């Protein structure tokens, strides 16, 4: 048996597990902050896939450069998302995503 961590499959498996955990957490939880953290977990899972497949095809560094951009976008997303959560908290005095229903009424 070949040792672990020298095939791309292990990384694909790990990234799939991480992504599904993050997606399910986003769907299950009702705390907006936890939901934003679950988005970060999903972004990290896709980043891991990008880097793993770049290790499989190492002729250029495209995957790692993509992962770098994904990290930059994730930073921007976290800043704007947390600002929106603060505004939402000021508006409704809650971080419960069920309370974000002003447009429904």
């Amino acid at each position, binding site marked *: 048996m070949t040792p672990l*961590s020298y095939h791309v499959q292990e990384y*694909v*498996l790990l990234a*799939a*597990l991480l992504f599904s955990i993050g997606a399910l957490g986003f769907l299950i939880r009702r705390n907006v902050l936890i939901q934003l953290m679950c988005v970060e977990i999903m972004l*990290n899972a896709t980043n891991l896939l990008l880097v793993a497949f770049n290790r*499989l095809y190492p002729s250029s560094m495209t995957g790692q450069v993509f992962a770098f951009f994904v990290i930059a976008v994730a930073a921007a997303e976290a800043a704007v998302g947390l*600002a929106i959560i603060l505004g939402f908290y000021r508006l409704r005095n809650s971080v419960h995503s069920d309370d974000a229903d002003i447009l429904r009424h």
Partner: protein
Amino acid sequence: MTIGSIYFFLCAIACIAGALITVVARNPIRGALGLLLTIVGIAGMYLKLHAQFLAAVQVIVYAGAIVILFVFVLMLLGADAMERPTGNRSPVARIAGGFGIAAIVLFTAYRAIQVYSPTTNGHFPALPEDFGSVKSVGKQLFSEALAPFELSTALLIVAVIGAIAVARTGHKKAVLAPNNLTSAHRFFGGPVEPRDAVHPIAKDPTL
């Protein structure tokens, strides 16, 4: 088991455990620390995949900035950041939901391990000289990916300005909110009429 396998296994355990802690934790601070565990585990994976530059960026940006931002907001909100207990789900719904989640996760994992590269059967090939170093990533970043790199700086500055615009309270509101008084109230004991303009303090007619 080689050292590399043990290292991979530890990082994988850290990633999965951190993600589960984030999803399950009632206290969002624990969720943030679970996210931190996941991020550090993924940085370890990057080292295993010969992406040293990305591992450093991951620790600096994610662990050093994003998680700290989360903790800042959690501390700002205090106890209000805790999730309200929602105890109105029936046990049947809970069990069905648990089985559904397990089915989704297992199906995803099953599909994932079927993936393999047709050319090399998923086995990692030998690496060129400076794969994943700052030098090679920087070379690619400033040649092929120069336009997106510059655009990402614009994205970051727009995001920061947008975050400030969304999160700040208007100055008037901030002053007015505590006691609902205008500055005319505070300095002159009431609204200032145009006829008072010569002697704004002298509201008392006897003076």
